């Protein structure tokens, strides 16, 4: 049998690593990280892609709901019938309510152009993604400081001397290229400081660890800013040149001394002071990670903003070992790939989530998904009638699925396009099964950075079941809706050629390495001439954001202590493990084997008070909603908090392994669907307090016969 080697991109999580796949006939026999970029490195999830392929507990053909929503009665239908069904419904909805009553959502990432173009081609401005439960606070904080989004900078972690992580569990979140940079940095003698409410996979590699009171990240960051200014270890020249209102920052942080922060966060003041002295000697090669998934506390936006400001004080912009402007094709003297969305006339209706008109300070791109629920319930500014979620599960991603269902019941059509059964899919009207990443092609995308490149996913084998790629699904739906002209060509190969045409490259240029490198050497801007690079209203790095001021919001917000858990309650925090991509992989046979369920981390002393032993079942509850989970006792979690890995407690009966295994944090977040940070747009997912007690389900006796 002949062995084929295929360049592609992993799709087990949203990192989308470049990979090389070997096949024999229609069998995938080997997956490794692209040797040119990752030297073979691949995580457990990537390898388990082979198990995903073989797993039949995923949607294998299109399905149309027969019973009530969520009842689990499905009819397997042909693609022809399923696409006709969806298109007929959409056409009827467009006719009666207008195209803007259709909403589409996805997981974000490099291939969004296709989905965005489809949404806009249909005539709806209502494109969204999961980010209001993820990185919106960080993104908006970045915009408010630099006028640039969070992905407009990349962090040169390999060459930095000190990496500071506020709850960013960078090693468990596992972007292999980034993780290797961190390990290289540590191998070269770099320092890592870790701040969290519990010890993590990342924290065990750190040189310094601050176990802080939950919800006090902003206080610690303010204390650090104060101390940096007090010790005078900031980059005065950089600030004089590029920063506006530095004096306002100095005045603002005056009361937030290291001693004050230490008290507020429950750490030692001396440790903050010696930390600041240390980074003072290491700057500008000091990186404060501004956070990734920071939809956590009421002030997470401001915490992230403070971390961005600390980077500015370090003067780490556009330096080796600091944060570097992400360069695109244009910065390498190459014309960019053609965008599908750019060919589509922009819909004229205003967004139903209010972003861009009611909320002027938010980035219009994907808006804020959770705000659409309000529009569904009220019919304001206009009724929404259809939602298509593409590899996005709002019931797992956002709080309070029950409240979401109540809003979604106002809609006439729910469609799930996914490789696995999502909880949203299970509740929807139609499931359009997407082929796994090993069985599908994706559009060409640009990966920005100091060394930008064009990337492309190629299918390694033909689909094993009756599934299709997102490109095929969208193309065929677009044809049925009369907007097929926006998706040129009749095959993905023709679309690729169309995308590449202006660049001067051809598809053959992907053959050697699986990607097209746009430069040999990293492209760096002249740090002395960065004027015009910061896209704020003033053109400067803004300590006081013109945009926030215009929206009537503070830029330098006085600190308020977090709410203390009510008596008998704990603050529920969540996170991730290196072996799962949240809910996407819990049912994967090989990853389930590694981590079949999550546990509730609870501080040892608190557990002793509750009479809970390690491994006991505990009932975790909030306002009449509860679940049972095994307790994991540790001294290394703050006594106010309990923790569980996100993505478990799934309730799709066809996922026999994941079904009711462990517990779902988001299902405990009753009434929290609209609790967002008004300045950052992120949800306050860690503002949930739960009770914990030893469960009556722990066996005491067992009658056998």
């Amino acid at each position, binding site marked *: 049998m002949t062995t084929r080697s295929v360049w592609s991109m992993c799709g087990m999580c949203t990192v989308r690593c470049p990979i090389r796949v070997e096949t024999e006939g229609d069998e995938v026999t080997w997956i490794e990280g692209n040797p040119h970029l990752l*030297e073979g*490195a691949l995580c*457990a999830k990537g*390898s388990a892609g082979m198990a995903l392929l073989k797993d039949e507990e995923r949607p294998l053909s299109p399905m149309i709901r027969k019973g009530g929503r969520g009842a689990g009665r499905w009819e397997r239908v042909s693609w022809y019938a399923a696409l006709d069904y969806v298109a007929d419904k959409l056409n009827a909805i467009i006719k009666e309510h207008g195209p803007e009553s259709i909403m589409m959502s996805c997981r974000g990432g490099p291939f969004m152009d296709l989905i965005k173009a489809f949404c806009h081609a249909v005539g709806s401005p209502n494109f969204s993604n999961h980010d209001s439960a993820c990185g919106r606070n960080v993104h908006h904080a970045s915009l408010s400081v630099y006028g640039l989004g969070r992905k407009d900078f990349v962090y040169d972690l390999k060459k930095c001397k000190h990496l500071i992580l506020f709850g960013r569990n960078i090693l468990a979140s596992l972007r292999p290229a980034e993780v290797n940079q961190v390990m290289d940095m540590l*191998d070269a003698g770099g320092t890592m400081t870790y701040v969290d409410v519990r010890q993590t996979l990342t924290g065990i590699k750190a040189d310094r660890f601050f176990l802080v009171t939950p919800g006090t990240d902003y206080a610690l960051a303010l204390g650090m800013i104060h101390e940096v200014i007090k010790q005078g270890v900031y980059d005065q020249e950089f600030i004089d040149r590029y920063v506006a209102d530095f004096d306002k920052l100095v005045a603002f942080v005056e009361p937030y001394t290291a001693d004050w922060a230490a008290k507020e966060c429950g750490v030692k003041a001396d440790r903050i002071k010696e930390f600041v002295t240390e980074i003072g000697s290491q700057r500008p090669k000091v990186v404060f990670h501004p956070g990734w998934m920071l939809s956590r506390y009421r002030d997470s936006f401001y915490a992230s903003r403070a971390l961005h400001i600390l980077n500015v004080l370090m003067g780490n912009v556009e330096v080796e070992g600091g944060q570097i402007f992400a360069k695109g094709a244009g910065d390498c003297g190459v014309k960019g790939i053609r965008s599908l969305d750019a060919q589509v006339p922009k819909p004229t209706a205003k967004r139903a989530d209010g972003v861009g008109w009611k909320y002027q300070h938010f980035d219009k791109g994907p808006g804020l998904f959770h705000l659409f629920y309000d529009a569904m319930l009220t019919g304001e500014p206009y009724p929404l009638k259809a939602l298509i979620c593409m590899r996005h599960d709002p019931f797992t991603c956002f709080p309070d699925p029950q409240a979401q269902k109540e809003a979604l019941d106002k809609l006439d059509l729910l469609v799930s396009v996914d490789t696995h059964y999502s909880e949203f899919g299970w509740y929807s009207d139609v499931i359009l099964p997407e082929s796994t990443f090993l069985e599908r092609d994706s559009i060409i995308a640009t990966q920005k950075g100091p060394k930008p490149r064009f990337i492309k996913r190629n299918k390694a084998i033909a689909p094993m079941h009756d599934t299709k790629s997102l490109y095929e699904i969208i193309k065929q739906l677009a044809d049925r809706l009369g907007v097929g002209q926006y998706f040129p060509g009749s095959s993905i190969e023709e679309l690729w050629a169309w995308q590449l045409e202006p660049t001067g490259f051809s598809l053959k240029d992907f053959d050697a390495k699986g990607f097209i490198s746009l430069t040999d050497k990293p492209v760096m801007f002249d740090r002395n001439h960065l004027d015009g690079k910061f896209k704020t209203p003033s053109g400067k790095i803004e300590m006081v954001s013109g945009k926030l001021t215009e929206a009537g919001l503070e830029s330098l917000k006085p600190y308020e202590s977090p709410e203390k858990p009510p008596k008998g309650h704990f603050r529920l925090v969540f996170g991730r493990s290196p072996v799962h991509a949240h809910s996407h992989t819990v049912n994967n046979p090989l990853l389930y084997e590694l981590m079949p369920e999550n546990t509730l981390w609870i501080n040892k002393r608190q557990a002793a008070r509750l009479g809970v032993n390690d491994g006991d079942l505990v009932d975790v509850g909030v306002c009449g909603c509860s679940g049972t989970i095994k307790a994991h006792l540790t001294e290394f979690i703050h006594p106010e908090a309990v923790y569980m890995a996100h993505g478990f407690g799934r309730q799709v009966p066809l996922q026999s392994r994941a079904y009711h295994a462990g517990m779902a944090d988001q299902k405990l977040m009753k009434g929290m669907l609209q609790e967002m940070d008004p300045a950052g747009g992120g949800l306050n997912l860690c503002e949930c307090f739960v009770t914990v007690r030893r469960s009556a389900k722990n066996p005491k006796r067992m009658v056998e016969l």
Partner: protein
Amino acid sequence: MNKYMLYLNSKRCIGCHGCEVHCKTNKRLPEGPLLCEISHEPLKMVGGVPKTEFQFRSCYHCEEPYCVPVCPTGAMQKRADGIVFVEQEKCIGCMACVGACPWGVPQHNPATGKVVKCDYCLDRVDAGLKPACVTRCTTHALKFVTLTEL
């Protein structure tokens, strides 16, 4: 003398368990058998930081393996380069080796009814490649070392 060894640079290992799955997928193993394993001691406070290090364990490829002489069919063998492996065609799944190994290294493969164990991916080694766990290790912490006599 054994020619090869698997070495884990525990400073670089992040405990992502990738190696375990790389091994399983390369050997086409179903749920159940696990031919290499990452583990760690409970966290301990070291200089103000709760710390632990990861350990890697697979077959020790003993100089005088217990599993080889008990095999009734000669399926379990030790090569000249030290690699202890099971010749699948000869294995009858009697599990004598499973009982003989003090570390429980040989395991039952429910997909074939035979025994499976770490053989350093000898087909790959013979082709000049490295074992799957090493080739794909997320942080390049695992190394396949060729031993030399001093």
